[in-house]
């Protein structure tokens, strides 16, 4: 069984502010910190087999593969449709040159060419746009109470009722928004599927996972809407987490 051992503090450190950027790769490193380090880690070592290592990946020489993975997702890796060609270039440059990697630089034009082949992207939405339904949040609460509440607390504030348990990351309100700001619900969805519940990752269905996210959003004060969140990384990747508009 998959055991990650990413505790509350582990996560807190993963999402800590980025270290001082190297000269010339500042944007790439910042983007890496914001979008990639959650799973692939600062060291690029990832946590195989769940999160592949990028510091020892022979296929990083394949630019098409990199661009397609970032833009359209790959297996359990969510898509990052909001990144521009320039941003994808910066990221690719950073990853190909970071740690002990030495795969050479990439040109934005080459990235643009690959992106053209992927077709047009749908517009992005926000978690504040009414992206789930009341009924879905209610279903999510039932799942949350059984699978999440013991550690993340009845109020989703990361404070377990059982004092023997250590605190965990809050799943709603200010701290949650600060930590997840700029990421998409697809990242939240796939990261949660892969790591939670900590004692039995991957044990919830995709529908249960997305219902819990709906519940988290509703507790955080985000409005419900007419349509349910779908357990589909492509559509979830178009919903960004951010502060109340």
């Amino acid at each position, binding site marked *: *069984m998959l*055991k990650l*051992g990413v*505790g*509350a*503090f582990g996560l807190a450190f993963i999402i800590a*502010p980025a270290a001082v950027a190297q000269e010339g790769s500042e944007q790439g490193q910042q983007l890496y910190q914001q979008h990639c380090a959650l799973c692939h880690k600062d060291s690029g070592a990832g946590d195989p087999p769940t999160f592949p290592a990028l510091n020892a990946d022979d296929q990083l020489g394949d630019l098409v593969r990199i661009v397609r993975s970032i833009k359209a997702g790959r297996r359990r890796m969510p898509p990052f449709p909001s990144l521009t060609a320039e941003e994808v270039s910066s990221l690719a440059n950073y990853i190909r040159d970071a740690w002990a990697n030495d795969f050479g630089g990439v040109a934005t034009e080459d990235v643009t060419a690959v992106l053209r082949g992927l077709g047009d992207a749908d517009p992005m939405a926000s978690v504040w746009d009414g992206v789930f339904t009341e009924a879905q949040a209610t279903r999510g609460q039932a799942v949350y*109470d*059984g*699978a999440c*509440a*013991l550690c993340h*607390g*009845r*109020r989703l*504030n*990361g*404070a*377990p*009722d*059982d*004092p*023997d*348990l*250590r*605190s*965990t*990351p*809050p799943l709603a*309100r*200010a*701290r949650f928004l*600060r930590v997840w700001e700029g990421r998409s619900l697809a990242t939240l969805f796939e990261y949660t599927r892969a790591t939670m*519940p900590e*004692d*039995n990752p991957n*044990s919830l269905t995709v529908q249960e996972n997305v219902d819990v996210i709906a519940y988290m959003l509703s507790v955080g004060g985000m409005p419900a809407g007419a349509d349910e969140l779908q357990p589909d990384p492509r559509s979830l990747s178009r919903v960004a987490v951010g502060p109340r508009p």
Partner: protein
Amino acid sequence: MATRGDRRDNDPGIEREKGLNRREFVKTGVAAGLGSGALLGADEVQARVSETGAEQSAWDYAVDIVIAGGGCAGLTAAIRARDLGASVLVVDQNFDLGGRMLHSAARLSLGGGDPVQQRDMRGESDREGFVTVAPIEDPEEVDDDIELLFTDITDWSVVDPKAQSPYRYNERELARAWAENCPATRQFLIDNYVRFSRISGTHGGGGLSRARLATCFLMLGDTTDIKAGTITAEDAGVAALERTSAFSPVQMNNATRSVGPNAVANGVALSRPLEFSAREKGVEFMLHRRFDEIVREEAVSGRVLGITARYSPRHHPETGELLQSFWRNGNIDEQRDTVRIRARQAVILASGGHAGNPEVRSMFYPALREPAFPTSGQALLGPGGQDASALIAGLRVGANLAGMQQNISYSTTFHISTRLGTRDAYTSMMPGHPTFGFRGSAGLNVGNAGFEEFIAVNQVGKRFFNEVRLPARPGTNGYPGDRGAPGRGLAHTPLDWRNCRKEWVREMYSYDHGLDAALAMNEGSEPPDYYSGPLWAIFDQDAVERNGWELRFPYVSDNGYFFRADTVEDLAEQIYAGHEFQRVPLSHLAETVASWNGYVEAGADPDFEREAEAPMNSIGTPPFYALSIMVIWHDSYGGLRVNGRQQVVDMKGEVIPGLYAGGEAVGGFNKHGLGKGHVHGYIAGTHAVEEPST
């Protein structure tokens, strides 16, 4: 000695005696005779024992086995001894049974190939078919045996996140006996109406090599019926968000994922079944009675003959009525002050540890003599809970102690609670249980993240540490490798020197020193005690609104642990006037808040570098709030030295005939909580009945 606290003595909502500010300690200690025991000189001890010797025939009760304490070790020992044919009397200082087991989460880590591990390995359900979810752990993760368990709990190579070696100095004879009795104890519990969830991980010192933890559950139903395994939502405390019951002081947890739909779990599903079984089998109980002394043939030699125990009634904080246990069959109603109870075969000490006795705590860690900080669950247990009674009485008849340094290496032993605004900060009792009134408030549990939202000040109103790092607590050693060893889960290699090589020790040394800062001397501490004093979270109305904190009953109340004022100056005055352990004015508080607001404006905190951790918010919008921050002393690891049969051993290494001990009363075995207590009780009960009847 200018101590404070006089003003609140007449508050019926708060039970004194264990509050133990210094003045009260001297007063009640001498009057009650318990605290005074540790203070008596050698001559006085001698005189007192001789006097007892002269009265040896004057027993008030006589049974085969007398047990001090009706918690996890005591109830288990009682049933075991009764099963083997002995007459058994349990004396407990509280009004109800279960001790801290009753408010625990029932994380019962045993192992060694125990029946629940084997059940999960085969993918089977329990015999009643309640467990409907698939096993959580893969078969190889529960493929355990006694040798592996023994290796794990004596593994010198494992360090914890404080870079200490919790298992290295475990008494090997104790560890061996414990490991050998784990499977039998799990079966014993099952045979006494305890139902276990799926195995998932381990808990608190249960070893790194295999998954060994299961929790105890009952099924929600129309009636509360221990034999049928059901409990009503009201009794389980899950019918309403802010209400518990007389049956369950703590609301039960949703166990859908580890058992199945409608399962609820916590210590209630362990304690109540054992109590039910004990009463059904004819164990007798004398409640409201505090164990005082061991009676031995001679001062420090000969057989142990019995105990003395003192009436310690607990009354309802509002009505004043004598509190009653939930079930009463088997109770002996005895209200004389001190009674002498003859144990024809053996005395078993299962009266808990020392965490509730600040004077004795100083034996292990002088900083924790500060009486402002109590032990866990003190409202439930009352003044006699975790009062070091076994240690004190044992020392007086010549017992040795063991494992005095082991308190230091477990993360829940002492730490800063994230539950603010209540003295009883290590439990989650709500109104509905008769002891809630002793608590007065349930507290506001803000979690670690909440510490970003306020400043924390000491008794003179000064900040003392980076608030964000203050509640950090290191993890514990357990499967699948909660940072305990470089190889996690099944990849852990026991006894491998690489587990504690220099680089790993350095990596593990992540212990934050907020606790040390919190307990440090400050301008308000005065000789001879230099008490560091209470701690306060200070914030404003904006913080309340940012976080949606519910500052109302039952979370906070006017019990001296929560204050609200329109100005910071007034807030400081209210704390000084209203908190029982606030010995000096918070003379720096206004200046501290003003400095903090300057730091917020400048975006930098030169004192503690908070800006590196989280956004900083000014404290400027009235009303202003102060909630107590509590340091909790939860576990007791040092205690009476025992052998592998749980017999208490004296200073010469010889067994004290007829005296057994288990659970937190004993030392030399760093293993958290219930897993230790139940097996100790099982072993003690087994061997105590083999003693000759005298």
